[in-house]
């Protein structure tokens, strides 16, 4: 099993949030999709919220998260760099 670094984990979380579209995604769903523990996920979500890559939607029962325009830009940039490295036979 290969080691998953922080940048990869962040991009996995952002991808999972993106899949939630306008309705957003809940924490339980994110934990499953991004394959990450609750404590670590909450810490990263707070960081992503503080830099504006995602936004919080407060519903009656729980918190949900939605990707922002900045988040989409970051994800696209990450994909471009990942492809660039892969084209030289390397991995980010």
């Amino acid at each position: 099993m290969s080691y998953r670094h922080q940048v990869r984990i962040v991009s996995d979380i952002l991808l999972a949030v993106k899949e939630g579209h306008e309705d957003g995604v809940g924490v339980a769903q994110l934990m499953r999709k991004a394959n990450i523990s609750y404590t670590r996920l909450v810490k990263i979500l707070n960081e992503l919220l503080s830099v504006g890559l995602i936004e919080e939607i407060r519903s009656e029962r729980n918190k949900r998260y939605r990707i922002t325009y900045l988040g989409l830009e970051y994800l696209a940039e990450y994909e471009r760099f990942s492809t660039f490295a892969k084209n030289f036979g390397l991995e980010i």
Partner: protein
Amino acid sequence: MVFLEILELAKMVLEVIALVITFSAFLISYKGYSVTKRPVFARLSFAFIFLSANFMLQFFSDIFNILEFFSLSYYSSVISSFFEMLGFFFIAVSHMIKVSQEHKLYSLVLVLVIINPVVAFKTLSLYFIFYAILESLLSYSKVRSKTILLTVLGLTGFALNTLLTWISEFTLYPIILNLFALVFQTFGIIAFFVPIWIYYRSVR
């Protein structure tokens, strides 16, 4: 005589094109490092800035040669070979680190022919390029991406260019070898342009 001049001119044009391409690759890698902070982009930045410096110095070496400043031409050539070696060293190291992370490392055999500094640096460059080719081929066998295959062919072009330049150091009439070296270098440059073109196309 005219053929020789055309050959020299074509070589210089190619060096300028290669300089632009490798410098573009450096800019992308550096931006990649700024955004992701991943060491692979730091290594690629070093690789491409050294390769850019190599092509720039090769160009200056040819200019000095035309102007008959032979000692300046020789020293530019030595330094450019050193930068070429460093460039391919960083590409090879990126592959070595990837391989060591996957817990497999190949035993490496190195035969150094030290006759003059240019030959020594070219020998090391060859060794690094061949290693990068081997690893890129293994990556291709896993993901089957056509662009990786093109990078492999590009690296092979650079390897053959370096090999022929290396052999030409021992021959009395290296014109034909230089012509073929130029053809392989052209191929290498075109192949290296593709990942850069893909990146800029996706930005737009």
